[in-house]
Structures are given as C-alpha cells and as structure tokens.
C-alpha cells in the first residue's frame, strides 16, 4: 500500500508540473463584465416581472378568500340545525342499495293437499 501511495504522490507531482500556467487572454475582463451585466439584466427582468405577478396573485388570493367567506353564510348546512342537515342528507334519493321483498323468501312450497287443507 505504501508503494501505491508513493506511486500516487509521484503522479500528483508530475501532474502539477504538467499543468501549464494559464495566462488570461485580452478578452478576459471585457467578457467577464459582459457576463456580469447579462446576469444583472436577467435578474433585473425577473425582479421586474416578479413584483407585479406577486401583486396580482395576492389580489386573486384575497378575492377568493372574500368569496369563500361570503359563500359560507349562504349554505343550508350552516343555516339549519344538525338534525335538519341529517334529515336532508338521508333523503330517498340517497338510497343506493335496494332489495326485492318477497312473501316467501326461502322459496319453500308446501305440498298441494296441505295448501288446500289450509285454505279450507
């Protein structure tokens, strides 16, 4: 492992020597300021659009809140008592499950003579 570490140190040392010194080109500063300005203009545009957008969204939120509060007072649930609401809720239209009612639910039939005897 020490061999490996020494090898690695050697590679790093040579890599350091192999990386050239980089001199800035004459365009470095003009390009830098152009980038700063372009980012500033983007931020400025974003800020300029974001402010009115936030105002509009705030107004919409306030409007929805007012409409919501105004609508609450008019609902029947709030106007009547709990019993009224319960009665209104359990109306016939809300019966979803029905079953046919028969006289003889088991389907069993007595023999004919017995039936006649019974009728007499």
């Amino acid at each position, binding site marked *: *492992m020490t061999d490996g570490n020494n*090898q690695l140190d050697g590679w790093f040392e*040579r*890599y*350091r020597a192999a*990386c050239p*010194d980089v001199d800035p*080109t004459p365009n470095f*500063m003009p390009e830098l300021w152009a980038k700063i300005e372009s980012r500033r203009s983007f931020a400025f545009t974003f800020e300029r659009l974001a402010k009115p957008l936030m105002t509009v969204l705030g107004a919409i939120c306030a409007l929805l809140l007012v409409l919501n509060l105004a609508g609450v007072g008019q609902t029947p649930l709030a106007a009547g008592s709990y019993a009224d609401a319960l009665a209104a809720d359990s109306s016939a239209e809300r019966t979803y499950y029905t079953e046919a009612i028969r006289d003889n639910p088991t389907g069993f039939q007595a023999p004919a003579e017995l039936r006649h005897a019974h009728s007499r």
Partner: protein
Amino acid sequence: MLIEQELIERARTGDAGAFNQVVLAYRKRILGTISRLIGRPEDVEDVAQEVFVRLYYSLDQLRTAEVFEPWLYRLTVNASYDYLRRIKRRSESRMADLSEHQVMMADSVAGGRQEDDEKQKGKVREFMEALFRHVSEEDRLLLTLKEVEGLSLKELESIYGAKENALKVRLFRARQRVLKAYATAKEAGTL
C-alpha cells in the same frame, strides 16, 4: 493576501473599480488553480469568469474581508465542481475504463522516459484525467487541492468548513479509491 482589505471592503459596497482591481490581482492564481482542478486548458478561462461572476454577486454576503481568500477558493471549487459534473454528464457515453494505452502511460509517467517534454506533459495530463474519471468529482477536487495545489489542511478546513480529522479521513479514502481504480484497470487484462 494579494490585496489590501480596504479594497475588498470597497468592492463589497459595489465599487466596480475596486472589484476590477480584485479580479486583476487574483485572476492568474485562480486560472492556475482551475487549470489543475479541471485539467482542460480550453475551458479554464470560462470557469474562471464564472467564479468572478459569482464573486461579484456574493460579495455582500462576505462576513469580513479577512476570509476573502477561502471564500474565493470555495467559489472556485464550486464552479469547478459544477463544470466537472456538466462535462461528466455530456461525455458519460464516451467513458470507458483506462485503456491499455493509458495504463502503459502510467509506467511511462512513473519511469520518466526521455521524450519530448511537452508530449510527456500531455501524456501525464491525459493519464491523470483518465484516472480522475474513475473517482467522484468531490474526490478529484479534494485530492487536487491537497496534493497538486499544495493547500494545507488548515486552508482546506476553511474552504470546506470541515474539521481537520474529517478531512484526513476523506483524503485517505479518496487516495484509496484512486489506487483501487488504477488497480482495477490494470487487472482488467491490460498488464
């Protein structure tokens, strides 16, 4: 520090002339650091400009002028990291293990054969690039700052905001991963 603290204070308050002087004082050092961090001379200037753009927009967050250099280094590391991530995504499909040629180059690098100097340097860079591709960007940056840039653990502490012991462990593990990557490539049937 390459400049007076007063100049940084002026730049912080939005003095464009002062900021210009700060850039002029540090750009060569930053270009050199980025060159070693990313290993691609053609993109060094672009990344350096990104560092200074970030510096311009974050100078007001700098607590005191005394921590300016670690702050600038941190911006440099972050911009280099972003660049390396971008490059990795772009060239992931082209990535392969260390080629036979590159592994052979390691020996050439270690042995220091008599070759044309520039050609040799190019090979060293190519080899290290191939090796670094097998470890994470974090490992690459940390190792380069410590082993190639020669930063002390104290300096790394202020850049990474981590304790010295934690950094030592990270460095140790990063070295192990680089060695393992090399050994794996070697065992993959090339040597």
